[in-house]
């Protein structure tokens, strides 16, 4: 076939052009700009003045609290989501009959695709002064403050990201050969032993994928701490909004962003090395 491989190359290149343009101009270029800015200085009126200095990075400890909160609450939130999600995923994958399985799974995932803003706002309402604290006063418990605490932020996190955790675990449990469970109990394995030796290890890829997805999103979280942490419990994301939109200290903000992305990359690659032995999670799918 004459020229067919050459015209095939042209076709492939043409089809990839729009996507490549987007990757270059909306991903690679902006990330390079941020990197360059992070070595610059703040202009007198805010914004950016050129230069090469490590001053911004040296200044990072001034936002230590935001980093600490993020690095403590993000893993805690991930773990808590896992603990809430696992039994549900197990129930959906193994205990529920085929008839109801799909509809129940859809019911778990649907909230994830609706406005996180509105769903988080619901918790301001529930945890706020006239929500649960008022109900508690009726039964005689007074002076309980729920909103603007780390606990409130954790509740918001579990609520917001539970669907993302349930789905990959469900997928890995669903694939699990049910005969293995029967074989184990036939051979006298107790339910606990069956779970620890068969179910849990075989669902590890799902657990790893779910934890990674939730953790990554939490590292850049802004809304949940903004609404439920009320300036007391703030993340790196909140510091970034403050730096870029209020104090307009772009170079420092850039340095914080770069640090955030670097921490994220390190944690994720470490995590993948540890849990998956280098294999990337192939269950990454949101629907």
């Amino acid at each position, binding site marked *: 076939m004459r020229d067919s491989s050459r015209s095939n190359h042209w076709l492939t290149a043409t089809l990839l052009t729009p996507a490549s343009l987007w990757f270059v101009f909306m991903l690679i270029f902006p990330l390079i700009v941020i990197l360059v800015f992070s070595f610059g200085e703040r202009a007198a009126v805010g914004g950016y003045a050129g230069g090469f200095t490590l001053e911004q990075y040296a200044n990072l400890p001034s936002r230590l609290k935001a980093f600490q909160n993020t690095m403590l609450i993000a893993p805690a939130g991930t773990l808590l989501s896992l603990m809430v999600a696992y039994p549900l995923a197990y129930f959906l994958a193994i205990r529920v009959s085929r008839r109801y399985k799909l509809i129940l799974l859809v019911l*778990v995932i649907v909230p994830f695709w*609706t406005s996180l803003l509105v*769903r988080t706002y619901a918790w*301001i*309402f529930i945890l706020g002064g006239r929500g649960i604290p008022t109900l508690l006063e009726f039964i005689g418990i007074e002076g309980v403050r729920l909103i603007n605490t780390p606990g409130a932020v954790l509740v918001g996190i579990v609520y917001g990201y539970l669907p993302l955790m349930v789905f990959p675990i469900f997928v890995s449990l669903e694939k699990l050969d049910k005969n293995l469970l029967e074989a184990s109990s036939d051979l006298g394995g107790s339910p606990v032993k069956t779970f620890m030796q068969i179910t849990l290890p075989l669902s590890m890829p799902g657990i790893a994928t779910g934890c990674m997805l939730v953790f990554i999103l939490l590292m850049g979280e802004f809304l949940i701490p903004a609404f439920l942490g009320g300036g007391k419990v703030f993340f790196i994301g909140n510091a970034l909004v403050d730096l870029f939109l209020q104090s307009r200290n772009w170079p420092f903000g850039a340095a914080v962003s770069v640090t955030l992305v670097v921490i994220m990359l390190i944690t994720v690659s470490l995590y993948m090395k540890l849990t998956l032995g280098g294999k990337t999670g192939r269950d990454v799918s949101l629907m």
Partner: protein
Amino acid sequence: MRIYAIAVFLFLYVPIGIIVLFSFNAGRHASELRGLSVQWYGKALSNPFVGDAFVTSLIIAFSVAVLSSFIGTTAALALQRLKGKMRVLFDSLIYISVMIPGIVIGIATLVALVTVFDFVNPVIASIWPEGVKPPKLQMGYASVIAAHTLFTMSLVIILVRARIAGMDRALIEASMDLYATPWRTFFQVTLPQIYPAILAGFLLSFTFSFDDFIISFFVAGANTTLPVYIFSSIRRGITPEVNAIGSMVLAASLFLLVMAQFLLRDRNSR
């Protein structure tokens, strides 16, 4: 186990229910339920700011959905032909686009575009004829649409590629053997098989863009989208009107999701 599952489902849906319930509040205070009425919906719908923000969000979400379905599908079709290093490069770019926090995309896009605009605008002004006001590049529809599309086109690529992988290659070969042109093979064999994934991608892109807050917050410029409007209203105080707007936003995304799910199920059952 069953009780636990019911409890989790309640945990997921009760807060949404509370927002919807309180949006029908007849009283003036957000947190005291005094009879039911739809007055706050009327108020929300007649608020010009809400209307403007809603239209802005619709324009952006629709453009994002059209762009990402097109770019995502073409890229997915090309990627199946790609091998070796280029394939690895594109796979990494796709996953980075999906994984990178929205706030970093928002900030990086803002900073990059403002820098480019600061550089380009004086150039345009200098070559523009005297007496005519030169156009000024600034943040607006285009910047939000472009920033959202980075994430959503990658999502479409992932969805369509999964569909292509599950497709019956024999049909394409049969079509080629019967001397159909590549175009005809594409439109009569490939496209009908992948279109549910494209449509689902379209709807998910629309939903993502319509619900996104953080990227729009940084790059929308003077164009307030609905989530940005809701955010600033909440900052000013919780009112039943915000509940009504929130309920409408939830209803809109639910509607789109049901459609997307329907299409993806159609795919699975074939």
